[in-house]
């Protein structure tokens, strides 16, 4: 068993039996391979269902807003950053949330793995061992390098260790030193029509299920702009302009708050790379204001503050 799993269970049992928290939010094994479920353990016995593997993609900070009582959350680097976001945005007090930090080696992208099994076959089991992933099905078994199967956001992740936690279940992992925006730079170097075509093509399969919004820890508004009717900011149909407007406004609402956790992309049933919208903004926020979301509970988000000499080269 993964030592992280053991440590998470031990921490959860301790916190629950000592009555320090009412619930531990973590993951349990899914009913189908490659898909874990968020799990809410309320008793030390239930804590035995908690697990940790490479399929813990859901960002558990999503479940914090409007929740009562004391809670503990199993948090990867990105989840912990989103918890800090919630603290900064007054969604929860620091003393009500206990962060069980998990230094994270990245989560896998099911589509990449599914593309490597024989056509027409279904994966019925996945096992992990020492950086390798083996998936099995009715008539096959394929072993893959986990590093090659990671989600794109995990590949370029700069904060694999939780910036703040109440306890860590493993030694911190080394941070990667990759340029997170290399592919975006290449895209931005293209002409405007080419970029527009790229983005239009990106969302052509969107079915407007709003899973990207609902899986996002930042999207906790009581009434989302897509549900506003007077005025109606975005049409409800499959019209390409409305689909694009939804994606633009969704991304903009995450500006300066997004941790690039990839929950939106992992939730998408159509495999749309919705992070390509939010990343443009995060790059801009980082370059212009030197800010990355969720690294400190004391730093204000960039759109809630200003400096007298903020850049304004485009303003007449």
């Amino acid at each position: 068993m993964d030592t992280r799993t053991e440590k998470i269970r031990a921490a959860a049992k301790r916190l629950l039996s000592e009555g320090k928290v009412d619930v531990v939010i973590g993951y349990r094994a899914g009913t189908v391979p490659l898909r874990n479920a968020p799990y809410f353990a309320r008793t030390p016995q239930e804590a035995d269902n908690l697990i940790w593997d490479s399929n813990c993609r859901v960002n558990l900070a999503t479940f914090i807003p409007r929740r009562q009582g004391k809670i503990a959350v199993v948090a990867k680097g990105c989840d912990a950053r989103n918890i800090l976001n919630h603290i900064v945005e007054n969604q929860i007090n620091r003393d009500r949330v206990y962060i069980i930090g998990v230094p994270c080696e990245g989560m896998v992208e099911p589509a990449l793995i599914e593309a490597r099994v024989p056509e027409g076959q279904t994966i019925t089991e996945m096992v992990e061992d020492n950086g390798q992933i083996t998936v099995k099905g009715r008539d096959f078994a394929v072993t893959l390098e986990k590093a090659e199967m990671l989600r794109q956001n995990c590949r370029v992740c700069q904060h694999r260790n939780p910036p703040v936690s109440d306890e860590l279940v493993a030694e911190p992992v080394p941070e990667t030193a990759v340029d997170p925006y290399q592919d975006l730079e290449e895209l931005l170097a293209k002409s405007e029509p080419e970029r527009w075509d790229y983005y239009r093509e990106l969302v052509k399969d969107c079915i407007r299920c709003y899973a990207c919004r609902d899986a996002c820890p930042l999207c906790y508004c009581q009434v989302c702009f897509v549900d506003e009717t007077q005025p109606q900011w975005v049409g409800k149909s499959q019209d390409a302009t409305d689909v694009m407007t939804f994606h633009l406004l969704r991304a903009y609402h995450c500006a300066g708050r997004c941790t690039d956790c990839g929950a939106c992309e992992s939730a998408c049933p159509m495999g749309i790379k919705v992070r390509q919208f939010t990343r443009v903004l995060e790059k801009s926020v980082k370059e212009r204001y030197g800010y990355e979301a969720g690294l400190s509970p004391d730093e204000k988000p960039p759109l809630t503050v200003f400096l007298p000499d903020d850049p304004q080269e485009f303003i007449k």
Partner: protein
Amino acid sequence: MASYILKKSDLAEFVESLAGEFPGGVLGPVLQDGKIVLAAAEPREFRLDFQNTHLSPKDLFFPQSEKMLEFTANPGEEGAFILEEVKNQPQRRLVLGLRPCDAKAFVVLDTIFTNDQYSDPYWAEKREATVIIGLDCNEPCPTCFCTSMGSGPFHEEGQDVQAVDLGDRLLLKPLTSKGEEVLKKAQGLTPAAPADKARAQELKQQAEATITDEVETDNIAARTVMELFEAPHWDEVQERCLNCGVCTYVCPTCHCFDIQDEVHEGKGVRLRNWDYCMSWLFTQHGSGHNPRPDKKSRVRQRFMHKFKYIPLKREGAIGCVGCGRCITLCPVNIDVRDVVRDMNS
């Protein structure tokens, strides 16, 4: 009705011989951007080795966005704001390779869109103009539970022609007069031998045997609506539900929609779009009251509708066909099989 054999190598000839009959096109399963979709394509691109289409085929007859009525919105103009029918009489289409669960879903939706009280013309016209050739599942997926939901890998309802994959050949069995007529006009067919039918029967038994996952529903019928409504397990389900629309939009039997008017540069359209009961706006009243005010009441609605309300109204028929799409695509792994087991306990 006589059955036929179609060699897979003759599929192109078969499709081309029918192309003239179907000005609306011949649609089949094709691989697009890594996903199986139903689309018009060259016959050689049609795939017969897939598991199921990524999304349900309900949009064949119930598109996600559909224009219903039109009007001009220039006050003062003659006929302004008078709603007119949208003139788009559907053309005859042939659909190949539809899985039995999805075909069964059309039967479920028929009872909703075209019943003795009301017939929805938008659904009915398209349904009428389409001939469906199914494709039985020799190898059901681990998430399939069709056999528990009144369907099955070789289920016949909802198709005009049933097709069984016999390796290098397909066994085609007409199930309706519409299907028989089409096969009579098609080329590339030879009569089926008793051995072929026996082989199909064998495959059917094999396929059904691979679905070991039984999801019983008999007890749901025995429990009262209020008992199910107040069951404690909804608290567990709702806790991780995101209230997104994935399960509803990928579901072959979810059929709720919302009607809106849109006006652009003087031209108005009344359209209907898919809608989903997980959305708070779905039940929001003009007064501000919302009868389903929380996550729990919304997620409960989806399961209660399929497994209690529809059976109550439709003489026990379940509103789910067991295709398993919602299981594989739910972002938080809410497994309908487990929910139904809880409801049935």
